[in-house]
Structure formats: structure tokens, C-alpha cells
């Protein structure tokens, strides 16, 4: 359990729902490692987009 906290749980859930159009039930039905993979991929994507926009 120590990898997460209730505050972090809701913060991540809110960010995925508010900014990336996931639904609560979609995220809650994932396995925790899947959610972590999606969050990592999303972070990489946002970083690349930011770099692309800064260059352009």
C-alpha cells in the first residue's frame, strides 16, 4: 500500500477525469499498475508536447 495515499489517489483521479476525459468508473476498473502506466505515458506525452511547442 505504501506506494500511494488517499490524497494522491483522489488528486490523480481528479486530474485524469478533469483534464483527460476519463470517467471515474473507467479509472476505477483499471488495475493500479495499469493506471500508473497510463499516468507515466500521459506525463511523457505532455512533456514531449511542451518541448514541441517551445521549439515551434
Amino acid at each position, binding site marked *: *500500500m*505504501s*506506494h*500511494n*495515499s*488517499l490524497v494522491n*489517489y483522489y488528486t490523480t483521479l481528479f486530474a485524469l477525469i478533469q483534464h483527460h476525459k476519463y470517467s471515474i468508473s473507467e*479509472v*476505477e*476498473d*483499471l*488495475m*493500479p*499498475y495499469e*493506471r*500508473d502506466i497510463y499516468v507515466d505515458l500521459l506525463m511523457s506525452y505532455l512533456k514531449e508536447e511542451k518541448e514541441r511547442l517551445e521549439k515551434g
Partner: protein
Amino acid sequence: MLPKIDKPIFELKIPSMDKSINFRPFTVKEEKILLTAQQSGEDKDIILAIKQVINNCCQEPNFEVNDLATFDLEFMFLKLRAKSVNNIIDVSYRDNEDDELYSFAINLDDVEMINLDSESTKLISVTETVGLKMKYPSVTIIDNIPSYEDATDVIDYLVKSCIDCIYDEESVYSTKDIPAEELDAWLDNLDIDTFTKIREFFDKLPQMYYKLTYTNSKGTERVIELNSLNDFFMLG
């Protein structure tokens, strides 16, 4: 129509029964149950949440989580967590000699059970013809520990709850069928040697085992043995 299982299935071993049953990983929704219990900080809430999640994830219809021994529950949860979140956990430990923080990555797949051969300590002979058979403390027994103020009352409760049966030359008497007062009186008459054997049974209960070794900045070699869920998730 019955619901279809759309999650990967894997086998989990019940150490005390030496058999494997099918489980699915827990979901983010079930992780919330665990985190909510963790937030409360109460051991009883955490055990209840672990039981609830294990029950949800088990794919065997006749599985009864309350029948598990406490060490079964801890071991199975650790393995379930490894399949659901990550099999690597990061822990840190502050050395009490140099006050430095040491970090370790533990592979939960490498955690094993020890003392599983303690089956032989279950049978305790009182005389040449009379004896008793112990059973591992189940989740239910630990759940129902009354709130005694005196530690010896807790030990009495545990000893009584973990006696499976008493036998003599003619019969086997299940403790379920023996009135509490009669059992109390019988236990009060036991000699010290028998109580030593009962204590040995509890000392040799199966448990999880993982060893961390490091050398601190002053050159002292340290060994940390991890045996419980608290050790794995609260260390540091």
C-alpha cells in the same frame, strides 16, 4: 447471466494448506478500500480491508477468508499486491548507529514463508496417553480478541482459541464441544512442561521472511529481517 472475468487470473498459494487457488489482481477501486483503511490507522480496519479485497479477488466459490491463518492472509496479500501494483517496493531504514537513511528495493516475489514444517509442534503430549492438538491462529481468532487490559488474559484467550482438540486413549474431544469452564479448569491443571511446548508452538508459527543486509558508514554489517506486513510497508 454470470459476470465474465475480464482480468488476468493467477494462482496464489495458501501456505498453511499447501494448495493454490485462482485470483485476479485488485482494481483501483479496491485499492481505495485499502487506502481508506490505511488512513484510519486502525489495525482492525486494515485487516478488514485486506480480507474484503482478498475475498473480492478470489475466484473460488467455496473460499472462506475467515478460515485463513493470519500468516496466510499476510502472505497472500503481499503476493496479491505484487501482481496488482508492483512487485518492487522501496523501503528505507534509518540506522541507529550513524543516523543515516538507507534505501532498499525489495522484490516481493522473493519473499518466502519459513517454519512451514512446524506441523509437528501442533501435537503436544501431556501424559503418555493424553495430549492436545493445536491449530494455527485464524483471522477470526485475531479479529475477536477481546479488549483485555492484562496481556496474560490475551495470551490465555489465544491459547484457548488455538487448541483444536484434546485426546486420550479412548476419544478425541473437540474444544468446540467442551464448555468454557471445563476447558479453563483443564488448562489450569496443566504442568509447566506442557505450557512450554504450547509456547514453542507459538514461537515456531510460520511467518514471512525477507532479509536485508547492508554495511553502514561506520563499517558495521547490519541484517534486517522482515516478517510482517508492517515490516514491508511501514519500515523507515
